């Protein structure tokens, strides 16, 4: 078969290669998903010609044409099998897509506020704590709810306050405006003694769509993507790794945030006003407000501006970034891991026990 392919292939003249390339480009650009297979096929056929053009005269086109699909098949199956054996329970990815991630979060338990973690079961119990936050408080990178810092904290506090109740109001990517809305919706009903606000630098952003865009490969436009993204572990990994390999933005996120959200900017004032609004709302329920900053600062300047603002309002601030540095959920997800969540819970426990008096009968 290889011999026949060799003979056929060698009969294609130089312009045959040129035509194949033009066909390829045409199909890939205007063809869309319908013509992509033809484009790929044309590209595949032209590979030996490319190799010949590079100066390798001793090649056998037929051998190359048969070995490419054979290698790709073995490669993909090896990748899929290795990942399925290595991560039978899935693994978190920061971009959070694909079956490997779904497998990781397959048994998620959601509380009545639409978050993960404890909820208030008994309105009469004491004390009650509201914890608001984003993906960190939601527990991205943590498989079981019991390992998220909110649950660990409840466990720790139970020894000192047997009736303690915690309400977690968190969601991935939740920002200040939504925090205000959530607090308005639930705090009146819960009547908390402490409100914890887990802050992250992204909270100050007016619109995450304004961030500098990174070059990414439009995988979703490939004709085979829909099937693989539903079923393949290995495809998720490839997507993630190639996305990581894409050139970085000319302006880093740190520079962007320091420039666009400097203290004199309109953007900062907007966030400041929103935060003041959140704070006065929280203050109307309890004097005990804790700001939790769980990660090391992305921008020390911006974080310091926020810390100054929070301190000026009398809020207590808990930093855990140094203690949890490098404790990532996985190689592909930089959210805190179980150990880091335990440390965060410890820090919060110390702060809460400092400010909350024991009930009279304890």
């Amino acid at each position, binding site marked *: 078969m290889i011999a026949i392919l060799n003979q056929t292939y060698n009969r294609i003249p130089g312009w045959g290669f040129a035509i194949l390339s033009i066909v390829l480009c045409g199909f890939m650009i205007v063809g869309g998903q319908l013509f992509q297979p033809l484009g790929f096929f044309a590209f595949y056929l032209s590979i030996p010609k490319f190799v010949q053009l*590079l*100066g*390798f*005269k*001793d*090649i056998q086109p037929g051998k190359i044409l048969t*070995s490419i699909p*054979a*290698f790709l098949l*073995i*490669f993909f199956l*090896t*990748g899929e099998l*290795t*990942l399925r054996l*290595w991560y039978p329970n899935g693994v978190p990815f920061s971009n959070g897509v694909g079956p490997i991630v779904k497998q990781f979060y397959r048994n998620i338990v959601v509380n009545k506020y639409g978050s993960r973690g404890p909820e208030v079961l008994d309105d009469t119990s004491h004390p009650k704590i509201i914890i608001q936050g984003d993906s960190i408080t939601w527990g991205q990178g943590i498989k079981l709810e019991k390992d998220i810092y909110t649950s660990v904290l409840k466990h720790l506090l139970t020894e000192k306050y047997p009736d303690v109740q915690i309400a977690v109001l968190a969601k991935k990517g939740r920002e200040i405006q939504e925090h205000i809305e959530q607090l308005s919706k639930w705090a009146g009903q819960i009547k908390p003694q402490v409100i914890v606000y887990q802050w992250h630098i992204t909270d100050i952003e007016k619109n995450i769509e304004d961030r500098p865009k990174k070059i990414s490969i439009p995988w979703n436009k490939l004709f085979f993507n829909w099937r693989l993204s539903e079923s393949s572990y*290995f495809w998720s*990994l*490839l997507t993630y*790794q190639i996305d*990581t*390999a894409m050139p970085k933005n000319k302006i880093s996120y740190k520079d962007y945030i320091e420039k666009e959200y400097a203290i004199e900017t309109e953007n900062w004032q907007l966030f400041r006003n929103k935060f003041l609004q959140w704070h006065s709302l929280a203050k109307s329920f309890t004097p005990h407000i804790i700001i939790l900053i769980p990660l090391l600062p992305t921008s020390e300047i911006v974080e310091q501006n926020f810390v100054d603002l929070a301190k000026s309002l009398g809020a207590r601030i808990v930093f855990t970034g140094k203690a949890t540095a490098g404790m990532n959920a996985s*190689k592909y997800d*930089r959210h805190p891991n179980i150990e880091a969540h335990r440390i965060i819970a410890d820090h919060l426990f110390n702060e809460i026990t400092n400010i909350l008096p024991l009930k009279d009968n304890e």
Partner: protein
Amino acid sequence: MLFNSYEFFVFYAVILLVCFATKDKIQNFLLLSASYFFYGFWDLRFLLLLLLLTVITYYLSMLIFKFENSLIKKVLLSVSVATSLSILAFFKYFNFFVESLSLLFAKVGIKAELPVMEIILPVGISFYTFQTISYTMDVYRKKTIPTNNFFDFALFIAFFPKLLAGPIERASHLIPQISCQRVRDTDQFKRGLYLVLFGLFKKIVIADAVAVYVNMIFGSGEIQSGINILIASFLFTIQIYCDFSGYTDMARGISKTLGFDLKLNFNLPYFSKNPKEFWQRWHISLSTWLRDYLYIPLGGNRFGRLITYRNLMITMFLGGLWHGAAWNYVWWGLYHGILLVFHRLWSPLSNRFFPKSLVINVTSVFCFFILTCYGWLIFRAESFNQILIFSNALITDLSIAKVILPTSKMAILLGIPLLMILDVYQYFTCNTRFYEKWPWFFRYLLYSFLIVQILISSGNAPEEFIYSQF
């Protein structure tokens, strides 16, 4: 631009395409430009240093070749070697010498405030200065005829795959490849790609992964239990091999795809039965350099036992110091010097009482591997005090109760076993290209498995190679 970074692979792909599209002479010029771009990517100021050293060595070597008068030749040789060594000494050892001197003065009660300067260490300086020295010496000894083409010589010094961490090439090996027409060979190209892949596997899957544990034990500053030190020393032995030989594999692989053949730098060093064999298998380009330009000129083994031992100790002392401006490298060099001396004393007895057999060979490999691991403990230690504390813990505190297990599971359960299988296979077949004889299915399976492990193990930021810091 590290070999294991995405930027490098873009750079490499561009160079490869450009080289394929051009003829040898233009290709050499392009490769030289690319090598300077690669080096300048670290720090533009380094380029001046590289250029200066290249110009001085090139012209002085030409003069050495032209002059017949041996005194003038010697003077020129001295100037050239002194220039290379002065540059190396200033950039690499100035602060080390000053600090050591201050410490020495303080010990004898003299308070001297010697000036310490903020000097940036140019990457790869130890490698290319040694290459310039070997070139001048070879010209002086008439082992090499100096090239008339400055650009060829400049490429010999700056050729980017080997610029940062070797192998330390000899003019007689590399310059003819630069000057002559290169043949584009599919087999060489495929071999090159495999070496790049295998080098990346060693670096990313094994070296970087086990480094986390090693750094934790050696860098914590806390008193560690002996069992953890034992594990860390073993893992560092694996790490440094995979890190350095991984770099060399990549350097050789990249060169092969560009049509050049660099020297073999590692030949299964942990299968050595004694220190002599170890230095014939580990960092071969450095050990042969030290042998040819230091040990033999000192007299080698030609003037009796005591002089031989002295020469061995001097060579290993300087070999240790070459690695870096710190005392632990010196101790490590001296440790290997002592092993070599001891081996010379012991080998006549061992040959008489322990005739060669499989059991003796396996036992020798195992025993010497333990000694090598201890040597790496000295090399990795952050102070002499740490060497003493760790050595003491290894003897007195081997309780399993305090064990901390490494977390890099992929490296330990998949990476290291695969490496061991491939190395054992290579050892017994005595063929570095053993896999090429496998049926296509198994070859593809091997390539796939290597790539898959690299993809799974890749983190966000590439880690530096240990030897590129020397």
